[in-house]
């Protein structure tokens, strides 16, 4: 069994790299977009709040696979013809943005109203209130669930093999197709995903501890 894994590992490396790459791009872009939309959901004018709320609710109610197929097979009909890699990343970003929006909303919502009152009372306008009072406090509540959610992006990325993107899952399936050793190889694949995600949840826990010294 170890021999089969040792044989397969070199073939899996490019896929592993693709998985990490897709996850990183997805997380980076969705965090920026999700943070902006999340702030819009909390503080924005009513029409913006409705749009963001609807987007988040709808996306979170759709399986990732359906999102991916919608982007890859559905959008070309509207003229937007994406390569598998781009379609995969776009689908995952849409999924992840909705998550980040909720992370941001939860983090800001957990800050007592009195903080905003106090910031207003010393004469800070909205952008400064956000930057110096709300964001630093919201950040420590945002990071643990956000980092936890990154594991969803990594796990969800296994589905992009179905669009023909050469990720880790795709690599495993190719080797299984040659060697007919599904137990060893899927087991090893599961182990690789687990290692990535376990490292992330350890980091998430460490962050939680790092910020816990600030009590209310």
């Amino acid at each position: 069994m170890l021999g089969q894994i040792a044989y397969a590992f070199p073939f899996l490396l490019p896929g592993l790299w693709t998985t990490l790459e897709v996850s990183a791009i997805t997380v980076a872009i969705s965090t920026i977009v999700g943070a902006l939309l999340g702030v819009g959901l909390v503080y924005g004018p009513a029409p913006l709040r409705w749009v963001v709320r609807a987007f988040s609710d709808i996306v979170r109610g759709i399986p990732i696979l359906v999102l991916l197929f919608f982007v890859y097979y559905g959008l070309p009909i509207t003229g937007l013809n994406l390569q598998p890699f781009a379609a995969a990343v776009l689908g995952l970003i849409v999924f992840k943005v909705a998550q980040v929006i909720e992370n941001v909303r939860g983090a800001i919502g957990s800050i007592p109203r009195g903080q905003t009152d106090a910031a207003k009372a010393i004469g800070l306008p909205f952008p400064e209130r956000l930057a110096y009072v709300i964001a630093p406090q919201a950040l420590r509540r945002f990071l643990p669930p956000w980092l936890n959610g990154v594991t969803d992006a990594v796990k969800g990325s296994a589905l992009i093999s179905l669009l023909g993107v050469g990720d880790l899952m795709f690599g495993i399936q190719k080797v299984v197709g040659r060697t007919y050793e599904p137990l060893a190889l899927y087991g090893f694949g599961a182990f690789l995903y687990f290692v990535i995600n376990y490292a992330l949840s350890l980091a998430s826990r460490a962050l939680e501890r790092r910020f816990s010294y600030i009590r209310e």
Partner: protein
Amino acid sequence: MPIGPPLLQIQNVQKSYGATQVLRGVDLRVAKGEVVTVIGPSGGGKTTLLRCVNFLESYDNGSIMIDGQEVGYRDVAARKRRSERDLARMRAETGMVFQLFNLFPHLSAAENIMLGLTKVRKLSRREARDKALHWLGRVGLTDKADRLPSELSGGQQQRVGIARAVAMEPKILLLDEITSALDPELVGEVLDVVLSLAAEGMTMLVVTHEIGFARDASHRIVFMAGGAVGADAPPREIFAADQPNERLRGFLGRFTAAHRL
């Protein structure tokens, strides 16, 4: 009692939450250097009124002027609100201290005071730090400058809250039940700070349940109940045995009874 044109002029201010009217046409004036205390039963609109003065709450009708400038609206008749920047500029002229302190938990005591000084008053960090230390000294907390709020007692936190407000050199200080959340043995240290500020001529509008403090420290006491001003007079008239306002007499009676226990 100090004389002069009113620094704060509240005229016929009305406010409703849905069908409930919490302020029913309040009139109140505070002159420069005056300490005015608002007392009255819970739910009588005291805190709401105070929060209207720096526009943490908007009001539906009437006018609130500080130093001749309308607080929340650039056009009172048309109810056109000031812009965000404009509101912030107006709020910087009033200082507020809160019942639950509302210190910024991620900033040290000194940084809590410095934030407004650097971002609103545009002082350099060094100037702001000097000023913060000066005010921390005034409230007896020089040695706590670099402590986080969570490392301070309630009384110490509230003294930082006062220092944060007065360091901005506001025209008027609004105190919202600032000892209500404190253990009884910590109330004195906070009130002492307020008394020393009053002695220096700081203009204050104080909402409090500390009737003794109201009697000893204020130039005028305003009794608010049911969203309206029931009495507005110097302490000795408020506490006079022949006080004509029955509701006020009842309110004060309950307090003295409670204190005799």
